[in-house]
């Protein structure tokens, strides 16, 4: 009896402290929860609600059945995926070697180059997109110089189509891929490559069996982010696509601006949101989503 009494010493007081601490923590996070609720949950709920309103303002599924019935909608979704997949693939092909290059540099030099990579982040998206237009169009700088230098004779069409869109989008997306990939590369212990080499691996073999596999989580995180951002992209395909690249986001805009059909636009938004969530859900099976947000490994 005495022993069990002794074990209860201060128990009530400690439980009380624990409760108070939890309440305080909740109190501290309450403002953040409120903001999330106001700016996220309510608008998305509203979007959801709107998407089920027909043209006459009553409940209807017409906004969704339209997407299935009309070929043009299907084409838009296909286009969105095509552009996103191509952009992601190109970003990986260009971004991975760039990240590798950065990771090999001595730290001070690496930060200089890193600023160059990040510079686009600090410039307006619109400015960058129009800058590409200036460079790529028929009377643009690239055509003028190439003709002046004799690389080709006739101006080449490089913009107002899929190619132009991809060039612009890849450029904008590169930092999103390079940063997590670079992070993964930097966190690889240099001794691992030495160990591989010591065990008999040629530099090429050591790269493919040790270095590359260890960078996959970072690369995957970057690629996922790029892909998801691409799905909702608007400005760049609108400016550089020349009307030939119509993505979901552009259809949303035209639904509202030209047809003032909030229901149709909302339904598109909902579908886009659900697709993104499905992709994230699948991806979370393969990797810790914390990494995308730069969390610990």
């Amino acid at each position, binding site marked *: 009896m005495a022993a069990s009494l002794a074990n209860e010493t201060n128990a009530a007081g400690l439980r009380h402290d624990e409760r108070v601490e939890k309440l305080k923590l909740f109190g501290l996070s309450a403002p953040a929860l409120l903001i999330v609720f106001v700016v996220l949950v309510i608008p998305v709920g509203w979007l959801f609600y709107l998407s089920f309103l027909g043209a006459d303002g009553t409940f209807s599924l017409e906004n969704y059945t339209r997407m299935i019935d009309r070929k043009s909608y299907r084409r838009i979704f296909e286009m969105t995926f095509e552009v996103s997949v191509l952009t992601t693939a190109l970003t990986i092909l260009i971004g991975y070697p760039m990240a590798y290059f950065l990771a090999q540099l001595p730290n001070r030099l690496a930060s200089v180059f890193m600023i160059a990579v990040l510079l686009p982040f600090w410039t307006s998206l619109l400015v960058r997109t129009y800058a590409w237009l200036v460079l790529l169009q028929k009377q643009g700088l690239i055509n003028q110089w190439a003709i002046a230098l004799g690389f080709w004779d006739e101006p080449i069409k490089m913009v107002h189509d899929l190619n132009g869109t991809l060039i612009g989008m890849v450029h904008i997306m590169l930092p999103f891929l390079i940063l997590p990939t670079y992070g993964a590369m930097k966190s690889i212990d240099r001794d*691992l490559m*030495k160990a591989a*080499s*010591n*065990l*008999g691996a040629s*530099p090429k073999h050591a790269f493919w069996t040790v270095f590359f*596999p*260890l960078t996959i989580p970072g690369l995957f995180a970057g690629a996922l982010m790029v892909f998801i951002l691409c799905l909702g992209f608007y400005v760049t395909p609108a400016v550089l696509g020349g009307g030939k690249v119509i993505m979901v986001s552009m259809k949303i805009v035209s639904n509202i601006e030209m047809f003032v059909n909030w229901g149709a636009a909302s339904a598109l938004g909902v579908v886009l949101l659900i697709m993104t969530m499905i992709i994230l859900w699948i991806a979370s099976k393969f990797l810790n989503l914390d990494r995308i947000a730069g969390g610990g490994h």
Partner: protein
Amino acid sequence: MTARNIEALPISVSHVTKTYGKVHALNDVSLEVKSGEFLTLLGPSGSGKTTLLMVLAGFTRPDSGSLKFGDREVIRLAPHLRDVGMTFQNYALFPHMTVAGNVSYPLKLRKVPKAEIAERVENALETVQLVGYGDRRITQLSGGQRQRVALARSIVFEPRILLMDEPLSALDKKLRDQMQIELRHLHEKLGMTTVYVTHDQREALTMSDRIAVVNHGRIMQLAAPRDLYEQPANRFVADFIGDSTFLPVHRQGKGVAFGDMPLKIAGSVPDAKDLQLMIRPERITLARDNNGESSNRFSAVAREVVYQGDSYLLQSELADGTLITMRGAVRGANLSVMPSVGDQVMLNLEPDDAVVIDGSED
């Protein structure tokens, strides 16, 4: 069990130099490691131990010098062609592979048939006492287990030379002591030429056939553990190994003297200008009687007494202010009584234990 005895190779390092800016990481190092020998590089931090090991493995390109494995000059050979086993200070295990994946890596590279790979991995894991751990992930292992996996990986392809850079430094003392014995047994069993790096003198004394004491990129002394301890070549080596007290001495007639007290020494006096008497703490004792005819006696005052369980440390001050450290045994009360601070004590140093060394630092 079936570990084959490896046909070992001698290593011959001659005149190897490596500088980083103004730092002489290796300063004209020459060293012969005998076939099958366990040689330890011992030295303080920054002395060049890792650099020398990296030169042997091929990761650091020296400025000049020659390196031979057996008769073959390898100084310009790429690391992946050298065929030496190596364990890294932080193990460098591949985190994306299992234990078996790590251990089989060098075998797959050598295109060993699948069945044989499985067998040899199993054998290697048995050698390091990790049978049944093949499917574990590296992150699921303790420090000691990682160390063993690293070891298994470095011996599984039966390299004729094994390099180890402070392999035990991350382990706790008990595990370290145990692994020291195991590594030693493993070396006896497999018999590859081994170069081992440590800055732990006891580890070096426990494990090695010979020890090379390194300082400022140079080899100060290369000798068997016992010779190194008993007859250090200079003050640096004497100081680095053991916690000795040094008393300045000078020649007097045929012998040497400390102040005006002639010393009785059994060994020879080195041919050097600056001479010092080295007093190992465990070799000096409290005199039990007053007839000091056959030994050296120092009268002193006890300044500090520290009880350490298996022994006690006594620091006493000579008339001229020099502090002498003594380690006394804690045994039956009559045999050895711990003095108290302030006591007058008489220290006894037998001629056999009175070693005069070259007092220069290198």
